[in-house]
């Protein structure tokens, strides 16, 4: 399959890239890893007239802690996250997530920036970043701005990014001591989108109660879902079995899946309940809570 014809641009800087986006507006798309965009273009579900390839822009791929954040450059490949000692030892939720995205070959090209900017509720980083309370940094015509992840996903395949903006960095707050996280995904096979998946991040206080709780849901709604009521039910409480079961039920209630080949609505909602409970338990273990 060959995509519709387009004009190819390979800017050497963010400034050049945003200038191209300003010039071509809705007719342009940013090409990052291309592992979602190119399949859509081949199926002619997307047909940008101009493709702005940001892969040649230097200094957009990095993973480092600075100023209270884990800062990840938008062009960082999933495989680089997977192999990062920093991610593996300090960010177990993120490490879980990048190991189950698509397949190992796709992960060699796919980027974290693309995974978020694509705005697909079936992608895995959105729920994880919701649970981690991350923010993204975008650069556009008017300069740089920071967008909290909770207000980033505005609809199916739609984000808060303006047509002239490029996502350049993801910032995850460095978790306090006694933190833990986990991502649990059920997929029919490697490479398939999640039937459902749940991201959990929590931090325990000195008394063993949950000081911070983040819960994000993948592919059970038109956008990635932040399970706010489930989070609120745990906050300030000791995460005993009863509290976990209650939060898991609230997460299931927050999901809005639709029936498809992966299963009916009731099944997917119950899957969210089960995965949330398991992810909470694993996050708790990793936080040293039991």
């Amino acid at each position: 399959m060959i995509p519709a014809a387009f004009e190819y641009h390979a800017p050497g800087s963010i400034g050049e890239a945003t200038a191209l986006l300003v010039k071509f507006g809705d007719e342009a798309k940013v090409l990052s890893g291309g592992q979602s965009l190119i399949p859509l273009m081949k199926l002619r579900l997307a047909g940008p007239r101009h493709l702005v390839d940001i892969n040649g822009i230097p200094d957009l791929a990095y993973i480092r802690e600075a100023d209270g954040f884990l800062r990840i450059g938008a062009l960082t490949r999933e495989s680089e996250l997977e192999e990062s000692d920093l991610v593996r030892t300090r960010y177990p939720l993120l490490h879980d997530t990048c190991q189950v995205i698509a397949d190992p070959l796709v992960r060699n090209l796919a980027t974290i920036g693309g995974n978020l900017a694509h705005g697909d509720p079936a992608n895995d980083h959105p729920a994880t970043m919701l649970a981690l309370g991350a923010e993204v940094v975008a650069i556009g015509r008017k300069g740089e701005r920071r967008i909290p992840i909770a207000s980033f996903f505005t609809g199916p395949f739609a984000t808060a990014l303006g047509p002239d903006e490029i996502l350049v960095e993801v910032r995850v707050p460095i978790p306090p001591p006694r933190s833990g996280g986990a991502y649990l995904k059920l997929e029919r096979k490697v490479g398939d989108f999640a039937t459902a998946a749940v991201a959990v991040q929590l931090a325990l206080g000195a008394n063993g109660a949950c000081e911070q709780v983040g819960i994000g849901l993948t592919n059970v709604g038109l956008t990635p879902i932040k399970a706010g009521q489930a989070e609120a039910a745990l906050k300030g409480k000791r995460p005993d079995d009863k509290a976990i079961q209650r939060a898991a039920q609230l997460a299931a209630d927050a999901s809005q899946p639709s029936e498809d080949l992966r299963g009916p609505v009731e099944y997917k909602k119950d899957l969210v309940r089960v995965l949330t409970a398991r992810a909470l338990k694993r996050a708790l273990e990793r936080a040293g809570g039991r």
Partner: protein
Amino acid sequence: MQITLSINGEKHEADVEPRFLLVHLIRDILRLTGTHIGCDTTHCGACTVLLDGRPVKSCTMFAVQARGKEIMTVEGLEQNGKLHPLQEGFMAEHGLQCGYCTPGMLMTSHAFLKTHPTPTEEDIRRAISGNLCRCTGYVNIVKAIQYAAAKLRG
């Protein structure tokens, strides 16, 4: 668009439309037909080539993106008429039946063994999880990769 890239150590120049996929350049223009097109939808891995040493799906990358890069295809495995230990392994252990997925399997496992000289069975299965085989059930593919790993360790 005029591009230059290196394939199996040899420099190539080509004039390609931006919408041309890397696999089209490799197969249709350069006539290196060892790389296969399977599903054409980023699932099966039959089109796997190495891009600067990393296995990627050449049906999901534009040829223009490979300008200035080093590509390795299955044709680059054999050296001076001698099969690579992986190719030997797939023969010795019966790691193929129809052979359609084999070039992709070989390229993925070639990159994998460079970084994992003593893999467990689970490591191997995980590494090839982006390459689909509909014939073998994978058992003999895993054995073939183990054969090559042992031979490469010497």
